[in-house]
């Protein structure tokens, strides 16, 4: 989880309606950021742009200029969501092939499953 001072350093409140978050592209896949952003698109207009070689910038603007007392809390939630989505991506790299095999084997049984697994390993 992103907490405390580390969190503050990546979240910049530009105004009551606008927040900017910088995320390292060394730590996060852009798909993790897209997935976390997607959840927020009912409340905020979102811009994602590369800041430099190492960072993505994500800017949230409250839709319809309405007051959002939970704005900062939601920004922290967003950062945690990015972490969870990155974990999903990392886990999928490990077991994605297993998922594919389960579905394939369910509908069109693979006769030599053990050999197929060994080949994947090679």
């Amino acid at each position: 989880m992103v907490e405390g001072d580390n969190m503050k350093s990546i979240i910049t409140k530009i105004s009551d309606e606008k927040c900017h978050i910088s995320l390292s592209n060394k730590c996060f896949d852009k798909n993790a950021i897209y997935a976390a952003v997607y959840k927020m698109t009912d409340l905020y207009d979102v811009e994602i742009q590369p800041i430099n070689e190492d960072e993505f910038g994500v800017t949230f603007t409250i839709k319809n200029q309405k007051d959002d007392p939970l704005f900062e809390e939601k920004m922290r939630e967003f950062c945690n969501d990015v972490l969870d989505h990155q974990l999903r991506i990392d886990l999928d790299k490990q077991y994605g092939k297993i998922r594919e095999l389960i579905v394939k084997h369910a509908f069109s049984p693979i006769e030599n499953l053990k050999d197929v697994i060994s080949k994947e390993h090679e």
Partner: protein
Amino acid sequence: MNDSRSTPYTILPLQFSRMFSDKVLLTNEAGEFFFINPENFQELVTYKLNTSSSLFYDLKGKHLVTDTDIHPVIDLLATKYRTKMGFLRNFTVLHMVVITVRCNHKCRYCHASSEESHATQWDMNQVVAEKVVDTIFQSPSTRIKIEFQGGEPLLNWERVKYIVKYAKKINKHLKKDLSFVLCTNLTLMNEEKLNFIKKQNILISTSLDGPKDLHDNNRRLRQDGSSYDIFLKKLELTKSIIGNKGISALLTITKDSLSRIDDIIDEYVDKGFNGIFLRALNPFGYAKNNQSLGYNVGEYFRTYKKALDYIIKTNLEGTYFEEFYTTLLLSRIMTPFSTGFVDLQSPAGTGISCAVYDFNGDVYPSDEARMLGKMGIKKFLMGNVLRDEYIKIFNGDVLRELINNSCVETLPGCAWCVFQQYCGADPIRNFSTQGDITGHRPTNEFCKKNMAIIKYLFELIIENNDDVMDVFWSWITKRPLEELRNVEL
């Protein structure tokens, strides 16, 4: 991926979500679930779990991890997954036939936008009826359910009788598991019709919106009078001829119903029904633009919770009474069995589990698609039985596009959802409410409603109250509570 791993164990495919402040829910492809605390979850994903711990054995038992050879685990999970997806095996089972668009009611929320009682040009004729049945029997499914819909099907009763006889004649050779359902408001029912219904073993699905004032306010006759009074008289007549088991009722919840949900449940119990299907208003037909009928997801969910509590209490007081939507979801969460349900499955049930044949022979993947067609949006028209072959209708671009875009594993927001295995997609509703068949999950009411309900059911499952769980299991196993509690283990 390998059988000779470099880590102490292999994490198997799973979805996860943090919820209830101190828990992480894990689910897998087979719909198995497990709650873990965040610290243990951190240990799990960093491969620091002790493989001799009871927690590890629990996770292993749920097929979320393994420290043995992987191929037998894949074999087992594939079998479980195949079982869960068993509803796909049959292709289209439910065939809804719009016998007429005429209706003697003009319900406030009618999603079918019915026509006047005398407007016979909206009736299905015999030529169309025959071609509809011929098309239905080309379905590869071994089970065929023909559901008569309207308007009010009893206004074109001769065609109902004709289809039943014609379908049975065809089925003498094909020997499929053939059944019939008649969706009727009952008001035009009589002994002669009921005798035919009993002889042909046709089930009746009717509508009851609650006590007299609610029912009459929602379900209005085109002519003056109380629809409830006629309904009640005909309900008694129906039960006296076909018995209690041959008839069920559907409820539509309008804004007026929200504060009266206990009264509505009492009415269902009082009229001898053994359950209720809590159903939110469909955003189609007359309901789409009638502000006085609608409510938001939050209001609906609060009513659902209140209703579920009341129904559980009713069961604990000795009356077997189900909430059918809850039973469906609990069966998905707590059993390994397949539970196809056209409105909540992945891929969507549209076309592959159900199809709608309009009075003029047009074929749609769902009733909602037919309604869009009536509004001039023919995007989902699959074909017409008078001019198109079965293969063109059911293997065409319309159905392929719908199915390709309704697998939750690939939809944004659903692809990483921990409730994926219990939920489904509704591309036609997405189109109608959000403008495209994929939909936008963060603003999608269908998603919000199902997320809230499934999460609440998990909350109750975690609480593990003996009484509540006994009621849930009695619904899943369709056994009275008393019988369930007396089972010797």
